């Protein structure tokens, strides 16, 4: 289906005492020109995407696909606070930044990508949706390569953020900008291959999907803290070939993407299954085989 030929990005666990990391210097270092009035979500997208393609051979017709649960959450909450609490009309730059594809514009301008440019959301499975869009466009020849990102920023105060994410009080929170350069399968220089992506309507369907895996192959499985909350504790116990992988990430919507990156960086050989639950009882899966696994 898809070969992953480069990965990169950034992640930080939010320190409740220190607050959010200041990204201005890192964003400036990642940019080929000075961008004014960009928000933190766009800064994260710029930093992560630049790190991914550093040294990579990016085709001129590469598409750009950004997935996120909330897009520019920090900017939108500020706009709403000013608008609803004080009756202030959004400033043009702030209004433009509420549009989910503003980050895509700046990444495209920074990296010289002028073709397909999409923003997509599917809760904590937004990276799955973005990879699926990229796969379909590569499949039809609309693009020959795709830069796929999962960008999810944390916003203070953390108790508000946990509420939005449906997380229990006190859950450790993270934020990340995780990127994959993907191409049609069959490349000699690929890091890994994505062989399956599925949307499963409920846990029973997930069980049936797991049933079609090769029982003789050991698979590593990554679940976000949110996904673990949504699954019954016995769901994966029926499948002895599944072994957990802990990417040592806090809870945030981009956990699936972050786990995939950390797994590919770990040097592990077994195929990885990332499972992301959504807020409607469904489960979304991605199966990735590191190159050494072939």
């Amino acid at each position, binding site marked *: 289906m898809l070969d992953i030929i480069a990965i990169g990005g950034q992640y930080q666990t939010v320190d409740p005492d220190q607050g959010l990391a200041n990204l201005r210097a890192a964003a400036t270092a990642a940019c080929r020109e000075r961008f004014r009035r960009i928000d933190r979500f766009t800064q994260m997208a710029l930093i992560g995407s630049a790190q991914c393609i550093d040294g990579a051979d990016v085709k001129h017709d590469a598409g750009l696909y950004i997935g996120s649960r*909330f897009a520019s959450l920090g900017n939108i909450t500020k706009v*709403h606070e000013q608008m609803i609490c004080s009756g202030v009309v*959004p400033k043009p730059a702030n209004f433009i930044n509420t549009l989910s594809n503003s980050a895509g514009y700046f990444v495209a301008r920074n990296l010289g990508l002028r073709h397909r440019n999409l923003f997509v*959301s599917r809760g904590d499975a937004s990276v799955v949706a973005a990879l699926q869009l990229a796969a379909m466009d590569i499949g*039809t*020849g609309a693009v020959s390569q795709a830069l796929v990102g999962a960008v999810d920023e944390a916003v203070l105060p953390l108790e508000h953020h946990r509420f939005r994410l449906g997380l229990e009080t006190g859950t450790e929170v993270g934020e990340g900008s995780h990127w994959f350069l993907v191409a049609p399968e069959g490349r000699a220089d690929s890091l890994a291959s994505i062989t399956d992506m599925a949307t499963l309507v409920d846990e029973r369907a997930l069980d049936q999907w797991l049933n079609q895996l090769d029982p003789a192959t050991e698979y590593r499985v990554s679940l976000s803290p949110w996904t673990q909350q949504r699954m019954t504790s016995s769901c994966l116990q029926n499948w002895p070939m599944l072994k957990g992988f802990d990417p040592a990430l806090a809870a945030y919507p981009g956990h699936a993407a972050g786990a995939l990156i950390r797994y590919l960086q770990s040097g592990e050989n077994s195929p990885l299954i990332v499972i992301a639950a959504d*807020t409607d009882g469904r489960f979304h899966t991605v199966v990735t085989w590191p190159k050494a696994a072939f």
Partner: protein
Amino acid sequence: MKDLKRSATAPVRIVASGIVSALGNGKRSNLTALFNDIATVPGRLSLPHFEAPIEVPYQAVLGAPESAEGRMHWLLNQAIGELLAEHPLTLEQRATIPVFIGSSCWGIGIAEEGYRQQYHDNPETAIPLPLDGFSQISRYLQQQFSFHGADFALNTACTATANAILSAAAAIRTGVSDHALVVGLEIRNDTTLAGFHGMQLLAQKNMRPFDRQRDGLVLGEGCGAILLSKCESDNPGVLLQGGASNCDTFSISASNPDGSTIAAVMADALDRSGIAPSDIQAIKAHGTATPLNDVGEAAGMRRAFDNVPPFFSLKAALGHTLGSCGVMETLLVAAALLEGRLPASAGFSEPDPVLGVVPMSQPLAVGPGHYLLNFFGFGGNNSSLIIRYQV
């Protein structure tokens, strides 16, 4: 999704659709209004919650509930209801059909109402954006209509559902599914209306695309839904021949006014569809009546075509329905083609010599052939679709 098959040119057809807009409920009402030049004068909408009250022209849907959530559900019920009445889908089909959704508003109006109520009740504990806006439409489609397949909430501003149509076609062409549902929705909300007001992009009264007196756009609300299906190349009806999208990095709020990137996306769409510019019978323009958009679009058409085909804009009639304009305008053009005619360019009366092009001032009798539809959005996102009407 495994082992995607490559078939970039496999035929895809619009088999059913549904719409509700400021022009009415259903395709019949919308077409009647378009061809009889009904209701091109927008109403006025007051936004009372700002420091200084704001009043904007607006093309509102009539008969919908006042609450944002109720309004969203009602609009979806009308559009999806009309679609399913035309082409019933079994529960088994609905369980797996991928759903491509485009919008600019998503659940922002619901979030505004929720936060405003919380703030009124207790400012200390109120939470801005207290819900996941992007999932609201998909959730309702799952709960109300049993569409549980992979959903894609696309937000590329005014090209959202044009891009959704391209992605839906790709899903069919790569063998993901034999069908794909595309849904576009836009409802009024303070963020969008105040945002456009603050950017001074709104017209004083009426919207006049390509007109010498144009002074900006009028926003509108509505919902459209299209069911795309795999078909045979000689099936009668309206097929999606192809399309393209690009990102113009000239400016975040407008495409290059020299028309080069707009011409490029049209050329790319033509190339991918395997047809020449001279094969295009007519163009449905984006036509937002802002000074920059119409200048750029006119320049783009002059670059892409030796002889610019007849062209028209629908936005003065519908209002600019932002992310949902792709699906709403495409399905109306398809419905009009099936009746053998296209409407005059709504809101136009006086040519602008600066543009070098003049839209249709009368309805046009049309027949089988290829038609091009343009959509451009903030963030430099440009999309062109090419449809083929055949009997």
